[in-house]
């Protein structure tokens, strides 16, 4: 009876499946908060640190600090040069853990387990869970370098809710002259070849920009055998800013995220449904009718976007440079230098002064904090304090003199071409640099007291050495020295700048409203841009109507409240 045997076998099989099903059904929501076991990676350091506590200045006494980075990174090799130097001279061994997967999830697990490494990446989640210790008194008492370093921004670092300092911001504190050779922020980007074709015209307004693209596309309908794309954009996953952020810049506001802030009254309002936004998307709608806009722009994923850019046939887009850099790097590898991009600060009309380039603001909500599990926070702070010393700062930024950089007779640091190439090599970096660590620690930016730039990227001579012919031609045609010279010099930052670093608080109505606004943007803006010109207004009205249904007030109120807080507490007395 073959059938019968099979039936009972099937029964057993299905019983197993049934349990499996229950399992799958129930475990889905459980594992977020009930599996603390995964995060137990940090316990080992406790023993080593316990002994070192008593005598604070015994620097060579071996000491282990466990570290968690909120990003993946080139993982250093066992006998990495820089780590070895730190171990030999300061007696500190770093036990590092890098992020694998999603940060929010990882932090969630850590918090659920209540088990933290000594030095931990900054996150509002951790302050909310009381996982980090207040640092202000310890810094005052034990860390003179850190105190001096943050002197000017001391009040900004305080947590708005309780006035304690939990995080040591990793970027945004400058000394000496700040030279920015490189511009990686937002701009309207255009291929250098397009500018060359028309004799390097000056572009100031959105209309100038699209005129030039139209002319070029009419003249060259194909590039390398494929159709030319006039203008593309991106609204994929979290990378929605190329689509959403342009209007604030065109209207002469700095990057405040989803709002524009009136500098006089220090109040914010969303701009998505305002005239300044409508004007931009209407222009895109017109350009779409002329066939300039990439029809696939809103349906493409990030890889497709990069692939298009690296094919060299996208004439322009609005974006931040780091977001499309991979595509541009590929153009450089292909030796298509004319297809690489120049960023231009467009505005709506001549009366508006562009405000793309900003003075670097303090990178709040970033850097390291010391967790409640750290056995000897004082020793850790002293270690970070030592690293802020110029000697160590040079080791971390430039490397070892004679090996990673040379010093000329005027005392200027420079690198040979071989040394520069080395710096691009990931394998070499794993053995010879402490990249992730450097990203997170408090550090000096700007210039050292001897006049050298704090890192090779901002040493002007180092930058000029990497320029291509087309860059030199372009710069001399426009009479500028650096890409950042195309932008109006950044005015002094508004005290409450930038609004995007405000913590909207997890789960609050403000955060939900902000999510909804973004959702509506990526839903309606493509519709509006791709609609027939005569239908644009009706789609736009629908969009504005939908925004009206969102609790915008909660969002604006939260931002305004925080802007006011900053005004009251951050002003230098």
């Amino acid at each position, binding site marked *: 009876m*073959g*059938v019968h045997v*099979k*039936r*009972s076998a*099937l*029964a057993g099989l*299905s*019983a197993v*499946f*049934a*349990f499996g*099903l*229950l*399992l799958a*059904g*129930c*475990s*889905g*929501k*459980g*594992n*977020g*908060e*009930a599996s603390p076991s995964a995060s137990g990676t940090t316990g080992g350091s406790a023993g080593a640190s316990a002994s070192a506590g008593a005598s604070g200045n015994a620097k060579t006494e071996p000491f282990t600090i466990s570290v968690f980075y909120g990003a993946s990174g080139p993982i250093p090799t066992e006998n990495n040069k820089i780590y070895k130097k730190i171990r030999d001279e300061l007696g500190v061994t770093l036990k590092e853990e890098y992020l694998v997967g999603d940060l*929010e999830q990882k932090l*969630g697990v850590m*918090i659920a387990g*209540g088990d933290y490494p000594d030095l931990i990446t900054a996150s509002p*989640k951790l302050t*909310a*869970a*009381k*996982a980090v210790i207040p640092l202000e008194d310890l810094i005052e008492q034990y860390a003179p370098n850190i105190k001096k370093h943050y002197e000017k921004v001391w009040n900004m670092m305080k947590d708005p809710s309780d006035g304690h300092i939990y995080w040591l911001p990793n970027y945004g504190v400058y000394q000496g002259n700040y030279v920015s050779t490189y511009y990686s922020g937002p701009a309207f980007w255009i291929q250098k070849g397009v500018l060359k074709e028309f004799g390097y015209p000056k572009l100031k307004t959105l209309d100038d920009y699209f005129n030039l693209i139209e002319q070029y596309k009419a003249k060259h309908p194909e590039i390398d055998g*494929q159709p030319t794309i006039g203008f593309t954009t991106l*609204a*994929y996953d979290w990378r929605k800013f190329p689509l959403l952020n342009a209007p604030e810049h065109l209207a002469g506001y700095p990057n405040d995220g989803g709002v524009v802030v009136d500098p006089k009254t220090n109040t914010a309002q969303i701009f998505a449904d305002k005239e300044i936004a409508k004007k931009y998307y209407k222009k895109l709608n017109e350009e779409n009718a002329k066939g300039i806009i990439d*029809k*696939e722009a*809103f*349906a*493409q*994923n990030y*890889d*497709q976007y990069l692939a*298009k850019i690296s094919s060299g046939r996208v004439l322009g887009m609005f974006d931040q440079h780091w977001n499309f850099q991979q595509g541009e790097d590929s153009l450089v590898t292909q030796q298509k230098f004319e297809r690489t991009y120049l960023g231009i600060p467009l505005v709506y009309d001549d009366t508006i002064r562009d405000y793309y380039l900003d003075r670097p603001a303090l990178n709040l909500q970033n850097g390291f904090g010391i967790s409640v599990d750290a056995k000897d926070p004082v020793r850790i702070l002293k270690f970070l304090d030592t690293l802020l010393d110029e000697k160590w700062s040079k080791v971390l930024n430039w490397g070892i003199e004679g090996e990673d950089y040379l010093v000329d007779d005027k005392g200027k640091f420079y690198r040979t071409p071989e040394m520069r190439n080395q710096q691009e090599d990931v394998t070499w970096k794993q053995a010879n640099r402490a990249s992730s660590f450097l990203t997170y620690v408090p550090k000096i930016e700007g210039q050292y007291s001897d006049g050298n730039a704090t890192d090779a990227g901002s040493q002007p001579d180092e930058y000029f050495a990497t320029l291509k012919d087309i860059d030199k031609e372009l710069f001399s045609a426009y009479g500028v020295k650096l890409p950042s010279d195309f932008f109006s010099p950044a005015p002094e930052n508004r005290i409450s700048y930038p609004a995007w670093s405000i913590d909207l608080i*997890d*789960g*609050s109505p403000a*955060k*939900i409203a902000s*999510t909804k606004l973004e*959702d509506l*943007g*990526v*839903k309606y*803006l*493509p*519709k509006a841009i*791709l609609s027939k010109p005569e239908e644009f207004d009706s789609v736009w009205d629908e969009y504005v109507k939908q925004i009206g249904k969102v609790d915008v007030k909660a969002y604006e109120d939260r931002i305004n409240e925080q802007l006011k807080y900053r005004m009251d507490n951050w002003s230098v007395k």
Partner: protein
Amino acid sequence: MQDTVLGSDAPRRTERRTGTIRKRMWSQRQLIWMSFPLLIYIVLFAYVPIWGWLMAFQQYRPGFSVFNQQWVGWDQFHFLFSDEGFLQVLRNTVAMSLINMVLGFVTAIGFAILLNEIRKSLAKRFIQTISYLPHFLSWVIVTGIVATSLSTEDGIVNIVLMKLHLIDSPILWLGEGKYFWGIVGASHVWKEVGWNAIIYLAAIASVDPSLYEAAEIDGANRYRKMLHITLPGIKPVIIILLIMNLGHILDAGFEVQYLLGNGQVVDWSQTIDIFVLKYGLKVGNYSLATAAGMFKTVVSIVLLFLANSIAKRLGEERLI
């Protein structure tokens, strides 16, 4: 299953019966030991975490114990069901699930039957291997392939349709909401058809060959044999799998829709899981995510029992 229940010779006295059960348990002791780890695993990972459902009735903040939270009653559920988008999300989830299920069943069964008819075993194995390989690709890769093939720039689908003169200009497949469900369904079929067919092939292999011989003597051709022997032969497997899949009707998937979706098709692409990610996890509202998960579980269990009892009433194979 009733026919596997112990003691089919029921009218014995209790004493003797207990004795028999002990004896039987003793004789199966290895099997019982072997099932213990599984049992512990299930209790630990499926039943113990259920207490976490308490979170759904709180405004949960991580880092504090569950008893040290603010209780909010049914607020999270209220938010969930009063949100305009949620009904749409529910519609998309159920629709895509049904499409996937129907397409999945029809293609896998059809494919298994056709494959079974191939006489040359080398060709058969070759086709089978090729067809189930995509199962091992991650959805990230598959959606990448799908997006590239559907691209208006150099996507193969548009090129083929253009060359066949079926369309005049490339269609923006991923930019039109009405195509989205179909694309998801087709991607599922491409990825899973070979894999899903395996279980049916195994079922077909266990059909008694003498039945085929008998049918042949009665003059049945190939199609008749497929229709009257193969299909009825694998019917129990089909029903069991159907019941199991019904329990997953609210799991339309997450990766496909998340990775293929974009602003233009959001009205068709957003599923419950994406909604939970956006308004639960990303904004840090774990309670909302828990509430949505609870809702899904309850619906799944109801559907599972419903399908099971229907199968029972129809006198078919069933799960529980």
